[in-house]
């Protein structure tokens, strides 16, 4: 299988018939969990990830007393692959969660100041991601499902300082729709949305977070391969161009 995919890539082809710069078919199901404040299931080809938003009243951080708190967590469910065993998140799941966290936070996609409740009390927004089927390009799928879940999330109602579940006071104060496009370097070519088998053959990937106004909000290089500055320039151009296709889906 691996050799077959490699031969195809060397000829500029992919075994699912896509060209190098096309996404697989993307399907999004909203509100997949009724108990969550917001949720979304994203299918990117065969990859499936689910994101859910829960909110709680919390104490603000000392250095930002007027701002709500964002906590992102990701887990590879043992459902998702024969190679995953139950247990705490490994380095890959932690890196994934931290990239998603930075994209949401650094793009200022949530207006955290509007999540102030009263002196010493702010909303904590939890975004929990679970990978259900590990078929490649997890970062892009996870960012997309997180943003979709955040954009349809509602803020629970508060009465006498307590949360009333299943009643809501409004929508989460969302501002931007950042997405990531992960660009893989294969020989001297670039491709996007790799499958799991393609990922095994690729040793250099650049995850680029792009905001609605084309500003770059996060970059993370993955794999032990290397990039030249001119290659990074090309990746940024591609990411900005391709980000528009994903943003339309949020």
């Amino acid at each position: 299988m691996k050799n077959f995919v490699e031969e195809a890539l060397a000829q500029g082809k992919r075994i699912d018939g896509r060209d190098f710069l096309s996404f697989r078919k993307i399907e999004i199901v909203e509100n997949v969990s009724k108990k969550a404040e917001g949720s979304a299931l994203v299918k990117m080809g065969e990859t499936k990830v689910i994101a859910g938003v829960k909110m709680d009243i919390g104490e603000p951080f000392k250095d930002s007393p007027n701002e709500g708190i964002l906590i992102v967590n990701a887990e590879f469910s043992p459902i998702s692959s024969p190679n995953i065993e139950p247990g705490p998140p490994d380095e890959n799941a932690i890196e994934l969660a931290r990239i998603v966290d930075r994209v949401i936070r650094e793009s200022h996609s949530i207006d955290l100041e509007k999540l102030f409740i009263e002196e010493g009390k702010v909303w904590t927004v939890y975004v929990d991601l679970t990978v259900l089927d590990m078929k490649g390009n997890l970062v892009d799928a996870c960012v997309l499902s997180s943003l979709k879940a955040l954009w349809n999330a509602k803020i629970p109602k508060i009465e006498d300082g307590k949360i009333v579940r299943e009643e809501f006071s409004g929508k989460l104060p969302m501002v931007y729709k950042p997405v990531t496009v992960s660009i893989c370097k294969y020989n001297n070519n670039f491709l996007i949305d790799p499958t799991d088998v393609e990922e095994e053959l690729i040793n250099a990937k650049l995850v680029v977070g792009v905001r609605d106004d084309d500003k770059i909000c996060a970059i993370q290089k993955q794999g032990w391969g290397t990039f030249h500055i001119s290659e990074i320039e090309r990746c940024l151009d591609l990411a900005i161009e391709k980000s528009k296709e994903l943003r339309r889906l949020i």
Partner: protein
Amino acid sequence: MGKKTNIQLMVDGRRIDGRLPEQLREIEMKIGEIENADGSARVRFGNTEALVAVYGPRSLFPKFLQESDMAILRVVYSMAPFSVDERKNPAPDRRSIEISKVTKDALSGAVFLEEFPRTVIDVYEYIIQADGSTRVTAINAASLALASAGIPMKDLVAACSVGKIGDVLIVDLCGKEDNYSESDMAVAMMPSKGLITLLQMDGRLTKEEVLQLLKKAEENCKKIYEMQKKALLEKFKVVGED
């Protein structure tokens, strides 16, 4: 990063610690302080200091972790509990785990791992004091430690941080700049061929600004690279001269 603050990071063209925008902090590099290690180095950028030891190539157990055609490189980044303002729990946190992973990627591409099948090269990074840019300081030390362990490499890996305050680009961020500047970027590269092995950025930058910062990073990685070579030559100049 990008937290709101009243702290003035830039006054009259000088940074919070008195430096000019493109000025590196005082840099010290010393090789071979850990007697037990196969290679070691200590690197200090101002008040950020990293001590790194390399053990290996050595046998790897359990056996199923071995790669039949190459060595594996493992990196553990950790911070001393007293290295920061408020005591840090010594257990690995999520940040340290992510840094360990990206550092492994940053170094693996520079080492001829195929020379040592079925073995492991362990790189242990320990931050003694932290005032911003700890991951890049540790990478500079790790690269020296690997070289001093006699492990064949394509090139040294040199690293530095760059960022932006207002419209001004800055290099080698200190702790306050790390926390409050609008954008920051960590870059590691093999300078002789200009190959980037680590790149992490967050903030809000246009494509042009990202590229400008990358160029600044490249310039400064080259300066650091020269210092690394000097440190190695100071340590090993006696070899072959007797």
